[in-house]
């Protein structure tokens, strides 16, 4: 007889215990899985400004590279980047920061990844004189960012034999990374390969860049890569000609967004919603509709609503008489399309009812500027954009094809050189010349300021970028003729420029 036989109560209790433990284990596995593989982790910044510069908008998950690989690339490819590393592409480093402005981090599936945010393209610099320190202008065009070269560097790295697990791990060590044996194992088996595959995909998607002219510093072709990456539109010569293929334009300034709501945004005015324009730009920085961090973008959006345009640094040296004269001329020639300083003296006046042309598109045949950018944005593309963020309430609904370029407010215009959408005219003073008197060739890439003509100085030599207005997409024509002030006297032009310094 089995004297140790369990009583029915004991059997039931044991069974209950087993069930309880199984449930607890399953929940634990679930929590760990969620915490490691589903949830991502970001650095939270107290200040909006720091959040703008270094906060994540969600681009790392799908487009980013692991932090240590990002740091290892300049070591591995020092022959291409030089000792300055990413600085050679115009990335800006602040003292004490290990990542440049505009590169943010996020921990995804246990690995810290880095990629771009808004600030990379929208932080400018200037120097008072050659030899001075560069000063940051937050929200200004990233006048020295060479995004084209950065992308080409990545596309070349994709097929470079040196990009192997061994070399990358060695470069990580040289860059100061101590991964430990476990992460080294993971990197060796998965991570490096996955990054390599990603770079290869980028290489194929953007193969058409081989046909493009270098965008140069401070410029980006927004919509051609967008077509290829988001929709796989074919980009071969039989599908897109040289004109539409070279749609590179200056980065815009992004301050004072609140009054811009409802204006035709982007250079060609293809969208009137600030929020939608921002979500679209975020796609360009590498987010996907799934990985986008909307609260983060909305925080930047709120902050940019009223972020002020930078005041002209040499306000004490302005010529009051010339300004008075310039103000009168500006009212006569420019204000109806661009708005003007408020008569009450409380900043820029963006009133689109007072300035009937402000924020509206002027047809290409009237404005006469380079057609590349407006041609790069097509009807079919606008249609396809309606499918972006599908399934979410913020699906794009405001994009439309236009036939020209939009009139923008000129707040902080001194810090937005070179001028015209394609940055083909180096200074404000040059823009007041007829097209044939504007510099046909000049150099971009210097941030030394020309306080007289207003704009960056054209300084050749070294890594300066030779901007040739004869190339497709680079024309400096248009915005020309008596209506645009190019027939005014020298004194008038000087006065106009003097007045615009106060914006």
């Amino acid at each position: 007889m089995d004297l140790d036989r369990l009583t029915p109560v004991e059997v039931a209790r044991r069974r209950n215990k087993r069930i309880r433990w199984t449930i607890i284990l399953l929940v634990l596995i679930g929590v760990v899985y969620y915490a490691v593989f589903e949830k991502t982790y970001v650095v939270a910044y107290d200040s909006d400004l720091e959040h703008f510069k270094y906060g994540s908008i969600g681009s790392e998950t799908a487009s980013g590279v692991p932090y240590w690989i990002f740091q290892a690339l300049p070591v591995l490819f020092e022959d291409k980047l030089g000792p300055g590393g990413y600085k050679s592409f115009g990335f800006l480093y602040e003292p004490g920061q290990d990542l440049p402005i505009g590169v943010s981090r996020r921990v995804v599936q246990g690995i810290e990844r880095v990629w771009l945010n808004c600030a990379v393209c929208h932080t400018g610099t200037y120097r008072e004189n050659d030899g001075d320190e560069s000063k940051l202008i937050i929200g200004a065009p990233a006048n020295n960012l060479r995004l084209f070269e950065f992308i080409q560097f990545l596309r070349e790295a994709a097929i470079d034999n040196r990009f192997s697990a061994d070399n990358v791990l060695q470069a990580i060590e040289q860059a100061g990374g101590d991964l430990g044996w476990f992460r080294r194992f993971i990197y060796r088996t998965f991570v490096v390969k996955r990054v390599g595959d990603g770079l290869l995909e980028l290489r194929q998607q953007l193969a058409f860049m081989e046909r493009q002219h270098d965008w140069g510093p401070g410029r980006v072709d927004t919509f051609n890569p967008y077509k290829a990456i988001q929709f796989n539109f074919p980009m071969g010569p039989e599908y897109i000609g040289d004109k539409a293929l070279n749609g590179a334009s200056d980065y815009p300034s992004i301050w004072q967004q609140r009054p811009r709501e409802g204006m035709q945004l982007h250079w060609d005015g293809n969208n009137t919603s600030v929020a939608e324009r921002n979500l679209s730009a975020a796609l360009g920085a590498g987010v996907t509709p799934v990985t986008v961090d909307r609260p983060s973008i909305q925080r930047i959006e709120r902050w940019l609503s009223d972020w002020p345009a930078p005041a002209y640094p040499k306000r004490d040296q302005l010529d009051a008489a010339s300004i008075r004269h310039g103000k009168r001329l500006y009212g006569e020639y420019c204000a109806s399309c661009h708005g003007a300083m408020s008569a009450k003296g409380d900043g820029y006046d963006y009133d689109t009812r007072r300035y009937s042309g402000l924020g509206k598109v002027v047809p290409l045949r009237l404005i006469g500027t380079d057609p590349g950018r407006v041609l790069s944005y097509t009807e079919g593309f606008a249609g396809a954009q309606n499918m972006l963020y599908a399934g979410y309430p913020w699906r794009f609904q405001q994009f439309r094809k236009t036939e020209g370029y939009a009139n923008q407010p000129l707040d902080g215009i001194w810090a937005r050189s070179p001028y015209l959408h394609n940055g083909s005219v180096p200074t404000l003073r040059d823009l007041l010349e007829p097209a044939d008197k504007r510099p046909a060739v000049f150099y971009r890439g210097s941030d030394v300021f020309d306080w007289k003509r207003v704009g960056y100085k054209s300084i050749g030599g070294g890594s300066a970028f030779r901007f040739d207005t004869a190339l497709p997409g680079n024309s400096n024509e248009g915005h020309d003729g008596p209506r645009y002030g190019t027939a005014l006297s020298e004194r008038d032009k000087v006065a106009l420029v003097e007045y615009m310094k106060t914006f």
Partner: protein
Amino acid sequence: MHGAVAVSEVEQRTRQHTIAIWVGIALNLCFIIPLLFVPTWFLGLFGVPLREPTWARFTGLLVLIISCFYVPAAVDLVRYRVIAWLAIVPSRSFGTLFFLTIVFVFEQPKGFLAGALLDGGVGLVTLYFLVRLTAAERAARAGAASTGDRRMGTHALKVAGAIVGLAVALVLGTWLLLFRSVPQPKLLDPLAAFNYGSIGNESAQGLPYWIWRVLPKVFSDHLPYPRNGWSSLGLYWEAGSELPVGLSKKTLGVIPRVSINCAFCHQGSYRLVGEDSSRLIPGGAGTRVSPQAYLRFLERVGKDARFNADRILEEIEAIYDLPWWESILYRFVLVPFTRRALQEQATLYAWTYDRPAWGRGRIDPFNPVKFTLLEQPIDDTIGNSDIMPLWSLAAVAHDGGARSALHWDGLNTSLHEVVLAGAIGDGLSHKAYAEVEERLTLIENWIRLQQPPASPFSPDRPPGDPYYVDPEAVVDGRRVFAKSCAECHDPHGPRHRTVIPVQEMGTDRHRLDMWTEAAKDRYLDYRSGSYDWGFEHFQNVDGYVATALSGVWARGPYLHNGSVPTLWDLLQPVAKRPTRFYRGLDVVDPDKGGFIAHGAEAQRLGTLYDVSEPGNANVGHTWGTELSVADKLALLAYLKTL
């Protein structure tokens, strides 16, 4: 005591079971005999159409044979117990499940439910008696019945109930997840209803939304030039709209589906100069859409190895956080079934491969209907014709009148029937009809009232403007028109909206030969299952309809087969009309009227039209070709302004 009760219960249950078996066999015979001798009449009672009685007879015979196998259990249940169980599973239960599935999942006529009722009813009753009998036997065998033994019977009943419940849940769940129709938001604007409203064809050909969303990206190489997404099919995409014009989104179960509607073909667009953006012409002549390119795209996608769950899911999940249950549905049901459906569609349209391509702005509208819905044998006819604009139809809206011939060849005389037949051709099912009837009426009324856009050609423009027309020329042209054209083309002309015999027209007759007497008869008698659509106004005629010329500037190319690119060319003798040109560019030709059909841009965006291909002849309609050049120019000026 208990044992005795159990024994008597065993006898009682056996008796009951035997009666149930015999009743079941008798009921079977009620089906078997009529099925054997008068199958068509009998199935007609249940609203089940029958074209081939032999199989129905054979089915009757099979049921008779099966019924014979039930007999042993009724004679000696103890000896043939296993047969009693086999009668329930698989026989009766599988039959029930079969009939339920075909009715509720595959939308077969409801009459088949009679089969489910018979098999289900008899199956459940015999199952009940058999289970109770088994329990009683156990009780009897135990001698002293305990409640525990009794529970054995209830336990078996529970298992059986669970199986039945599971089967019902499976059918119901499938229906809820994939087939239940969720009404579209009401589209009150008739134009929105026309452009984006569902016409009830989702169950026949709705693509699951997320598959549709990623197709043009994954398979951009299967799209026609310029391969820029859905727009490359020539569809107009209004700013901000989730779908291009001509596609609707409607949810079945939990899955939104995208399918075509009337506006897929009936949409026009135009540009006055090449640099402009296109403008939509609602209900227009479909001059740049390419229905065949869409068909070909889907066919190639269906055969492409990239169309697999891994790849499609990867693309979807890159742009949308698909809930896991939808992810499962897509992976295991929707992607494989869509692939199979696309392959089947390719087979159905295989005949198009050995006939001239439709090209942009054209379609063979009736052969697909003829070969599938109307079950006509695949012949070698070619029905390629231009897509007609849907406007200025108020005058012809009185059903069945002598002057209301519709379609190019007047094969129907009722606008209502034309709308309905169009929707059926696009996949409207009779089940969905009740839901979309109101919308189709709205669309029909919209078509009656819709007018072409105002002509850009005007004497009010400044002279020198490409779209300026000389007012005097217009006056002269009206005079020429009254003399030479009005008899047929003026809405008050005696022959307007009548069929002009092809001998008189002299135009290409392929389209006429496509429509046959047999096809007409089948359409007049067209039924979906038991549902009679009640068509009355199909006819077979031998000529082409003379229509009014409103908006004729936006209707090029001309003639029913679109064989003459511009109005000016149509006024030339046949020998001088262009023999090769390109269709599909929506830039208006300001000189000749119609759309620009030559040049690099037309060649890039358009499809080549060669008049030497069968169905493409540009002969006939020589009226006006004899006019003096001055009269022709005046007439052209007038026509441009209509």
